[in-house]
């Protein structure tokens, strides 16, 4: 069944890549963006990354690089929702295989203008018409389970799709009740969104669902810009010489991420740190408790990445801006951006 339906679920399809994407480690600068992506790779529970910034700053490059960087997952062969164990496969998929295979962490593109059917899945018209069978054709949410869902130009996404995503992102389950079908399956994924703020704002409800948010700008100094250009040019024109060097760096980073995942549960979190989290969020007046929770998780992931045993205030400060800046009430007149406000408050509250 997979072989037949697979070609139909095409987001922006990955053509059989003759080339690997641009390596993650080779991205010049944009440290905050890279840090945020590494943190969600360590702890997917942080809940996604939003990257907002100018065109041509490497937003899409970073996401595609991330896909190549991520460790593989174990999944049941042929399961449309990448279940880890055969008993977790949804019964509608009629998966007969019990073999566990390793496959790359799914990174699924959600294109603009995508239809609801394509996102949540729908009646498989093909099978209904040709064989008279009532079958479910899984959508993008199914494919993204246990992986990443990437939305480029997330701020231009149509509202009804946003509503859908919010619903599923919250419940971790996709429920389809349409055309005589009643289907549910797990849909736990990390949302990665990117966009250009000049073209429109994001609804606060969706904004809040992203664990971390970073703003990227084109590098201002010429040396950095030149370095970006040279690396990219080396990748384009001297691919064979360029890749081995950086793939080694990517491999080292992957090992660090894996080690951090193992270390994460053993971390000790002092009570004073929880206190710090709370006082920072109170001082900033961020809505709800999601801010505190994300801040703490991100700080823990940061500590794990640095391979230390105890989470400290320094870790908290390292992630505060990206965990909180998008949760403040928006001030239309504050042109400096909320990131600056958070940074200022961090210095005040946590000296």
């Amino acid at each position, binding site marked *: 069944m997979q072989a037949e339906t697979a070609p139909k679920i*095409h987001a*922006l399809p990955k053509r059989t*890549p003759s080339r690997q994407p641009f390596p993650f480690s080779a991205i010049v600068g944009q440290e905050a963006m890279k840090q945020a992506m590494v943190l969600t790779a360590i702890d997917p529970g942080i809940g996604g990354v939003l990257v907002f910034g100018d*065109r041509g700053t490497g937003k899409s490059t970073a996401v595609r690089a991330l896909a190549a960087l991520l460790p593989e997952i174990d999944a049941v062969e042929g399961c449309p929702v990448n279940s880890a164990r055969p008993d977790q496969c949804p019964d509608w998929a009629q998966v007969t295989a019990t073999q566990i295979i390793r496959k790359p962490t799914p990174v699924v593109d959600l294109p603009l203008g995508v239809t609801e059917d394509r996102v949540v899945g729908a009646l498989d018209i093909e099978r209904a018409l040709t064989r008279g069978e009532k079958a479910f054709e899984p959508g993008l949410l199914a494919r993204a389970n246990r992986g990443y869902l990437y939305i480029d130009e997330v701020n231009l996404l149509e509202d009804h799709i946003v509503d859908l995503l919010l619903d599923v992102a919250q419940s971790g389950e996709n429920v389809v009740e349409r055309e005589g079908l009643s289907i549910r399956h797990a849909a736990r994924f990390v949302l990665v969104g990117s966009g250009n703020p000049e*073209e429109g*704002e994001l609804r606060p409800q969706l904004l809040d669902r992203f664990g971390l948010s970073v703003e990227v700008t084109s590098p201002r100094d*010429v040396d950095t810009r030149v370095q970006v250009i040279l690396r*990219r040019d080396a990748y384009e024109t001297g691919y064979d010489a360029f890749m081995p060097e950086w793939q080694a760096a990517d491999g080292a980073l992957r090992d660090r991420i894996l080690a951090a995942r193992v270390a994460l549960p053993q971390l000790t979190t002092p009570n004073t740190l929880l206190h710090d989290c709370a006082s920072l969020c109170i001082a900033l007046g961020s809505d709800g408790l999601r801010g505190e929770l994300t801040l703490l998780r991100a700080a823990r992931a940061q500590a794990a990445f640095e391979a230390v045993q105890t989470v400290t205030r320094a870790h908290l400060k390292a992630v505060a801006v990206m965990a909180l800046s998008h949760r403040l009430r928006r001030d239309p007149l504050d042109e400096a951006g909320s990131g600056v406000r958070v940074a200022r408050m961090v210095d005040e509250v946590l000296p």
Partner: protein
Amino acid sequence: MDWSRIPLALQLLAIDPEGLKGLWLRARAGAVRDRVTAALTALPLPVVRLHPGLADDALYGGLDLSATLATGRPVTSRGLLSQPAALVLTMAERVPPGLSARLAHALDARGHCLIALDEAAEEGEGLPLALTDRLGLFLDLDGIAWSDTAEIPMDHKALAEARALLPTVTLPPDAARALTRAAAELGIASLRAPLLAMAAARALAAWAGRMSVDDSDLRQAAELIYGHRALPVSEAAPQDQPEPPPPDPGEETPQDSADQSQSIPEEMLVEAARAALPADLLARLTAGRAARAAKGASGTGAARSGNRRGRPLPSRPGRLGSGARIDLVATLRAAAPWQPLRRRSAQSDAVLLVRASDIRVKRFRETSDRVLIFAVDASGSSAFARLAEAKGAVELLLAAAYARRDHVALVAFRGTGAELILPPTRSLVQTKRRLAGLPGGGGTPLAAGMQLAMATATQARARGLTPTIALLTDGRGNIALDGSANRAQADDDAQRLARAIRATGVPAVVIDTANRPQPSLAEMARRMDAPYLALPRADARRLSGVLSAALGD
């Protein structure tokens, strides 16, 4: 644009379509454009034509329904993007964001090149930014007469030789630096531009039969790639102020160096790019870019008729493309009468034989209501003389709005703050009553009024309405946002809010109700990207006429 530049651009594209990513061709359909597009046959890629309404299954391939039904097994068709091609996109100014995102993605993966035929007729129309940023070359055929043109020489053999030479062409060591610096100086933020310029320089060298890129290649590359991306001098200038003056690379190399390629003064490249296009075109393109950025993404659109949700319309025969939903009952009803015939001719005893022609798809119509937000200046300076007229105009518009079932909201500002006199409503009676009771007098908290109007617009949009702001004021703002009587601060606040309103993309119109038109208000309207109407001594009826015209009724 001068015709002499055009053949070169096309030749370069034919040499390295993958590296240059493509061409943004701004021209009306006609003989001149045909002459240019005819040269595209020299590209080493198959030419594939696309149009803005293209569905996903055409791009990526999908189930071929007629073949599937005929053969009784799934037959898939190949998509247009399945192999490297020169994609010619007609009516590119109408390409929806979804398609432009897909095309941008296709361009990021290597292999494709895109020729966007942009027939933009009006200011603010044009190619989506996602594509203009990626396409290397830009040609504008506006104002080129047929008599100025000539057959474009595309020597296939020479092009093939250049193409073969291309992989071996080397760049001088500081070329990347010079091109990057020049781009920064021209205010080009995107880092794709220098990469494209490097590709162009390589192609130029290959075309000249040289193994290495020299100065003239770099200059021409900067001209071709940076010309249309550069910001006008005034806007680009502040960016490089904080930097120390760039050291002249020429000083680092030995004096009287004969090898010019070792030192490429980027000023030269900047000049080349600036010279490439007339100044007014730069300004026009920038204005268009800003307008699109502001208006392009207004979330919920106005009335639109789609096939996904909304009020159902009768279903009709159609193809099951992306986005279409099948109307099962109608499809079965269409198929039912033919069953005995089909069973006989297909010699099949299947229960149901459905053909592609039976398929009926659902259609929906979805409209979003418009809400007119009036921000009325009721201050002392404005009151008495003009307020009555403003009220009259609003009342006239209300009548029109009532006929179209538009919503109306009313924001008044006077004294030290603004007040939402009437949240978005359709009640004519209520609006009139509130309007009549609107008192005048006090200071002019222009900024506060704009802020409230903007907030109302944003809220309305979140509820699926399409807001428009009409700001009626005499522009003499003298109360700052914090309520203090500080004229300078008040001006500053108002200008910042004007920018903020523009950023939200809400269409707006500014009506100057002062006895003498205020230049500062016109300037503010420009910042808001809103039409400005000065109406000294206008009566209510004329005001209303101008207003409806500006709002595009």
